[in-house]
């Protein structure tokens, strides 16, 4: 394999009892880039990350981190990777500083380097004031920041971030994003899983959309967004009986293929930022005699991406996986 691939996953499958978490995952991440792994709950994102971080063994397939086989040579791989999990993996009963110093020593940093590095990272993640407090007194965001700091004690070749901002406030998200961008400038490759399209959009150079344990689409954020359209208009009509006519009207107004949600009496259509789309829709609906209860213009969501790529929404995916 080429040296310029930081992560290579080849046909990896993993089953837990009756549940097939991964059904043949393929992934390639060039060194020095950020790859966003996008998918709903239960799609297999966490399983993939845990296999790459040597915490789980795949049933079949091969996976390499920085050119090292994570199954056959897991110990050597651990020198090259960092992991920050969905659940902050830090010691609740130690202080923030105590945590970083402990992990530093376990990476065998020389004593002085471990101390300096801990203080530097505490500063970078705005934890200096809380450094001597026990972690169990930290807020969720502070824990997540400490967790991220702990995975940066060494400069890992590849950093795995499993939903790094789930549950964080906007400020916490922004801080995590800034830290991730910084890292890549220093040459680290980042693989981050997320449920948020905008997070992948902000950070990732490439996105892999996964569904039911395999990759269903890859591309740059631009390519994916072009597939689903830049913006969506949702029209809510008085009764679900009006939806058929609404569909005709929306199609005539935009040229797009509207998607209908009978349970919420909503018809949704992608509009590619063309001026006058809203007015055209109102005109066409009026022409077929359908009233409008509500109408909104919004950015595409993960759900739109899923509908477009897989033909079903994220909720359906969840049911399939848990069924």
């Amino acid at each position: 394999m080429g040296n310029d691939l930081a992560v290579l996953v080849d046909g990896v499958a993993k089953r837990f009892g009756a549940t097939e978490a991964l059904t043949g995952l393929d992934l390639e991440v060039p060194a020095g880039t950020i790859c966003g792994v996008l998918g709903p709950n239960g799609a297999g994102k966490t399983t993939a990350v845990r296999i790459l971080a040597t915490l789980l063994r795949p049933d079949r397939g091969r996976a390499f981190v920085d050119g090292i086989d994570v199954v056959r040579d897991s110990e050597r791989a651990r020198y090259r990777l960092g992991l920050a999990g969905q659940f902050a993996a830090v010691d609740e009963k130690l202080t923030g500083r105590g945590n970083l110093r402990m992990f530093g020593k376990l990476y065998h940093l020389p004593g002085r380097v471990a101390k300096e590095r801990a203080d530097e990272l505490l500063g970078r993640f705005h934890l200096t004031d809380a450094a001597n407090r026990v972690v169990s007194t930290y807020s969720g965001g502070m824990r997540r920041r400490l967790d991220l700091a702990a995975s940066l004690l060494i400069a890992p070749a590849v950093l795995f971030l499993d939903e790094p901002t789930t549950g964080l406030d906007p400020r916490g998200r922004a801080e995590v994003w800034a830290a991730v961008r910084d890292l890549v400038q220093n040459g680290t490759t980042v693989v981050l899983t997320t449920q948020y399209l905008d997070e992948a959009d902000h950070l990732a150079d490439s996105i892999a959309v996964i569904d039911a344990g395999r990759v269903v689409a890859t591309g740059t954020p631009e390519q994916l967004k072009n597939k689903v359209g830049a913006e969506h208009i949702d029209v809510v009509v008085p009764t679900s009986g009006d939806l058929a006519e609404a569909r005709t009207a929306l199609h005539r107004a935009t040229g797009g293929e509207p998607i209908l949600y009978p349970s919420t009496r909503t018809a949704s259509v992608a509009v590619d930022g063309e001026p006058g789309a809203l007015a055209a829709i109102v005109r066409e609906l009026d022409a077929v005699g359908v009233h409008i209860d509500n109408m909104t213009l919004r950015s595409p969501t993960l759900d739109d991406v899923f509908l477009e790529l897989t033909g079903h929404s994220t909720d359906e995916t969840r049911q399939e996986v848990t069924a």
Partner: protein
Amino acid sequence: MTAALWVPTPPKTPLARIRWAASDGFVLVRRELEHLFRDPGGLASEIVLPAIIVLLFGYVLGSAIMVPGGGDYREYLMPGIFAMQAMMGIGVTITTVAGDLADGVMDRFRSMPMARSAVPFGHTVSSLATGLINFTGVAVCALVVGWQPHRGLWLTVAGFGVLFLFRYAVGWVGVLLGLIFKTEEAADHAVPLMFPLAMIANTFVPTDGMPGWLRVIADWNPISAVTDSCRLLWGNPGSHGTVVSLPLQNPVLTAVIWSVGIIIVVAPLAVWRYRAAAK
């Protein structure tokens, strides 16, 4: 760049590997000790609980039980309580190991290039520290109710040596069980099951009067060997019953064989289980 680009290099020689593993182990021991001292409530219970047991068994049971060969029951009882406490120390280890697993911090340890033995090692060594506090608590209570060792300093120390060795061995069992139970709740349910193990022995009463089959179990119970070792080394009454069964003919040897045997069998199992632990 400064320290930002630090990349650790794996140890190359076997000697360097051992040094790294030892260093990892002691970092984890320090972590466990820090947990211990940040939890004064837990430490207090290590002292209060034995005090209650000493009073309960010493005075409630003590008024009715005759010591074989004569002698004071509380003198007879104390080695049994020390041995029982050494055994019950397993509970703390099981719950702390299970707590680690539930916390997710175990995931970080397992994704790091550290010795696979370090986490189990840290837990077992820190269980010795809890043991020290616990034994001190028992010793103070025991001295208050009239127990004392009679055979000089070195044999007294030897008795505690047997207790600590057994406690260390049991700590490995605790690590293994903690890794199997995985959650603190499951561990909490399992710990009371240790009580019969501590009772079907010569801890509180001589085994002579038990039904034959039960007596065989009691005599072979490592806790009996540990208790009898202490009685023998401390010169407390009742170190030998009327008919001495094989394991108790040389209780110190039996206690040491049991402890070392448990470590040899269980330690690799615990490390293996830790390597494989997937939540």
